[in-house]
């Protein structure tokens, strides 16, 4: 199968990002509760073959997996018991987009 190509540009540590607010059917590795939420890149972990293709037995390209840090208040809004607590989740690059001016609070 050869070495799969690495896709997606890496995000720098500390970059403000948003998890893409998309709801496709099928096997997805970005939890719904984080889609559309904003956080920051905590670290790049490593590239892995895309599990969303592997799940169907397909050859998969490598995507960078990131640790993304979210503020509880940004995820749970008024339901957050401690809004300044942090939640970290591991999210693949293709589910992450940079915040631009139109998204910035």
């Amino acid at each position: 199968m050869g070495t799969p190509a690495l896709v997606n540009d890496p995000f720098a540590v500390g970059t403000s990002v948003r998890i893409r607010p998309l709801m496709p059917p099928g096997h997805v590795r970005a939890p719904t509760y984080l889609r559309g939420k904003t956080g920051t890149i905590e670290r790049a972990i490593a590239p892995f073959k895309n599990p969303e293709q592997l799940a169907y037995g397909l050859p998969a390209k490598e995507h960078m997996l990131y640790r993304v840090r979210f503020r509880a208040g940004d995820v749970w809004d008024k339901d957050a018991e401690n809004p300044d607590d942090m939640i970290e989740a591991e999210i693949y690059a293709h589910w992450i987009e940079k915040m631009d001016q139109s998204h910035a609070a």
Partner: protein
Amino acid sequence: MDTQTDGRRWHDMGGQDAGPICDNQHDFSLWEKRVDALMILCSGKGYFTVDGLRRVLEDMGEEAFETMSYYERWIASINQNLIESGAYTTEELATKMAKVEARGETYGDASLGK
């Protein structure tokens, strides 16, 4: 409801109300341990990955989650993935299941058979 949660699939439970956590401890039976070992073998031999296991578990739906035990769901998913990856055909599976069934329901029966 927030529009971004429209279309959330049943297994994607993060942030949903869940009720109390059941902390009953239990041992696994022999067949359950075998199912777990089978998954490791399938992955090691390249038939499919744990991602395929998860995909079929998710596609089995919430009713399976409510009515089947953990490893009952696993063996159903492993079987589906093995058929999809060409490890055996449904006909071969049926023939083997009939052979095993003919041995009898207990280890005692099976050991006395041919």
